[in-house]
C-alpha cells in the first residue's frame, strides 16, 4: 500500500530525517513514534506531497488520490458549514453539489453528527469538530489514512471514544493507516507495527515492533493483553535511550 525508501528531508541545510524506510501493508495499522523534532510529521507531509524530500522515494500503490490526511487540528474551513466542509473533497473531485451534500449528510449521520450539518465549525465542540474532520476525510473513501496526532487536543473520554470508533471503522473497511503519535500506549493499542524514530537531526528508524494483539481490538481490553506491558516497557526504554543519545 505504502512504501517509503531511504527518505531524507528537512527545512534547511541539515536534514531532519535521513535514510528513513518504512512500510504500511494493505489493511494494516502502523504507528510512528519518536522524540519531539524527530520529523514524524514531516514524513506524513512528504507522503502527501506537501513537502519535497531531499532524496528517497515514496511509493503509493493506489496513487495520491487514495490517501486521506487527518491533521492534528481539525482544519475545517470556518466559513463553510459542517456539511459543506464534509462535501468539500467530493466537490473538488467534480461530484455534483447535490450528490456531494447528500453523501456528506450520510457521513455526518454515521459519525453521530446528524442535525449539525448546517452549523459553522465554531458552533461545534472540539469532539464534534474532530468527527466532522474525520467525515471530511472518509467521505473520499481513502484506502490509506495518514493521521498526525489527530486526537491530541481532545479530553481523555472523548479521545478514547473517537479512537475506538475510528479503529472499528478502519478494521471494518480494511483501511491502511499510518498514525503519528506521542502516546506510546495508544500506538501499541491500535497498531500492528510500531516504528520508533531516533532523536533528530538526521533521525532514522531505530527499531520496529510487531504487536500481536488479535483483532478486532478494544482500547481497554488490548491493554490487558499479556504482551502489552512488556512491549510498552521495551518501547519506553528504547525511546528513553533514543532521547538521551542524539544522532551524530
Amino acid at each position, binding site marked *: 500500500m505504502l512504501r517509503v525508501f531511504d527518505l531524507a528531508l528537512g527545512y534547511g541545510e541539515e536534514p531532519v530525517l535521513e535514510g528513513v524506510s518504512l512500510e504500511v501493508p494493505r489493511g494494516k495499522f502502523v504507528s510512528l513514534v519518536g522524540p519531539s523534532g524527530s520529523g514524524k510529521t514531516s514524513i506524513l*507531509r512528504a507522503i*502527501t*506531497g*506537501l513537502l519535497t524530500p531531499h532524496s528517497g522515494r515514496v511509493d503509493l500503490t493506489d496513487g495520491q*488520490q487514495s*490517501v*486521506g*490526511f487527518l*491533521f492534528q*487540528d481539525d*482544519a*475545517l*474551513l*470556518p*466559513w*463553510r458549514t459542517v456539511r459543506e466542509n464534509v462535501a*468539500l*473533497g467530493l466537490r*473538488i*473531485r467534480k461530484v455534483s453539489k447535490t450528490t456531494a451534500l447528500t453523501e456528506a449528510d450520510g457521513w455526518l449521520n454515521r459519525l453521530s453528527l446528524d442535525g449539525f450539518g448546517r452549523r*459553522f465549525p*465554531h458552533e461545534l465542540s472540539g469532539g464534534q469538530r474532530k468527527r466532522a474532520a474525520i467525515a*471530511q476525510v472518509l467521505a*473520499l473513501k481513502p484506502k490509506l489514512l495518514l493521521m498526525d496526532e489527530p486526537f491530541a487536543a481532545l479530553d481523555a473520554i472523548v479521545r478514547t471514544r473517537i479512537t475506538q470508533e475510528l479503529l472499528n471503522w478502519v478494521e471494518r473497511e480494511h483501511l491502511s493507516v499510518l498514525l503519528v503519535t506521542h502516546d506510546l500506549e495508544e500506538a501499541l493499542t491500535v497498531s500492528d507495527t510500531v516504528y520508533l524514530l531516533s532523536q533528530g537531526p538526521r533521525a532514522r528508524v531505530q527499531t520496529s515492533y510487531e504487536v500481536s494483539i488479535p483483532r478486532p481490538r478494544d482500547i481497554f481490553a488490548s491493554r490487558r493483553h499479556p504482551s502489552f506491558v512488556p512491549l510498552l516497557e521495551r518501547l519506553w526504554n528504547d525511546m528513553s535511550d533514543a532521547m538521551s543519545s542524539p544522532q551524530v
Partner: protein
Amino acid sequence: MRRLLSLLVLTVLWEALAQFGTIDPFYAPAPSEILRVVISLFTEGTILGHLEATFTAALAGLVIGLVLGVFFGFAAALIPFVADVVEPVMMLLNAIPRVILAPLFVIWLGIELPSKIALAVVLVAVLMFFAVYSGIKDVNQLLVDRVRTLGGGRMILLREVYIPSVTAWVLGSLKVAVGFAFTGAVVGEFVAATRGLGYLLQFAQSTYNAALTMGLIFLIMVFVLILFVAAEAIEHWLLRWRPRGAEEKSA
C-alpha cells in the same frame, strides 16, 4: 443607550452654556443654531447640488479604490513580480498623509470632480491593498494544506481559502475605507472646487461662519456614520460564520 444619553447630556449642557452666554457663539454656536442652519440648507435647497458632488466623488472613489486595492493586493500577494513593482509604491503612499496629494491632483486633473475622485481612490486603494496583501500573506497555512490534501489546485485554493480569508480583512477595512473616501472627496473640495461639502466648508471658513462650519461637519459625520453602519451590517451578514468574539474584536 448609556452612550446616547451621555451625548444628549453634553448637547443639552452645551446649549445651556451657549444660551447663558458662557460660550461665545462666534466660536461655538448653540446646537439649536447649528440645527437651524442645517435645516435651512435643506429647505432652501442650497445643499443639494453640493451633496450630490461630494457623494458622487466619495462613492466613485470608494468603488474604484476598492476594486484597484483588492486587485493589486491579490496580484502582489500571488505574483512576486507584481509585488516587486507595486508594494514599494504603496509603502511610499502609505508613509505620507495622502491628503497632501490633493493640490497635485488639482494641477493634473483640474478643479472639478475627477481630482476629488482621484484623491478618494488613492486613500481607499492603499488601505485595501494592504488589507488584501496582508490577508493573503497571513492566511492560515493549515487550511491551505487541508485543501491541497483534498486534491485542490491553485484555483480551488483561491476560491475556498484565499478569497474567503481575505474577505474578512476587506470587510473589516471597508468601514474605515468609507471614512477615507469621504475624506478624500471633502479635502479635495476644500483645496479647490466649485461645489461640494468641502467647498461649502471653505466658504464657511472664509466668512468665519462657525454655525455653518459645524453644521457641515455634523452632516458629514451623519453621512459617514450611516455608511459605516451599512458597511458593518454587510460585514455581519457576510461574516456570520465567525465566532462572536472575533466580530467584536474587529469592530
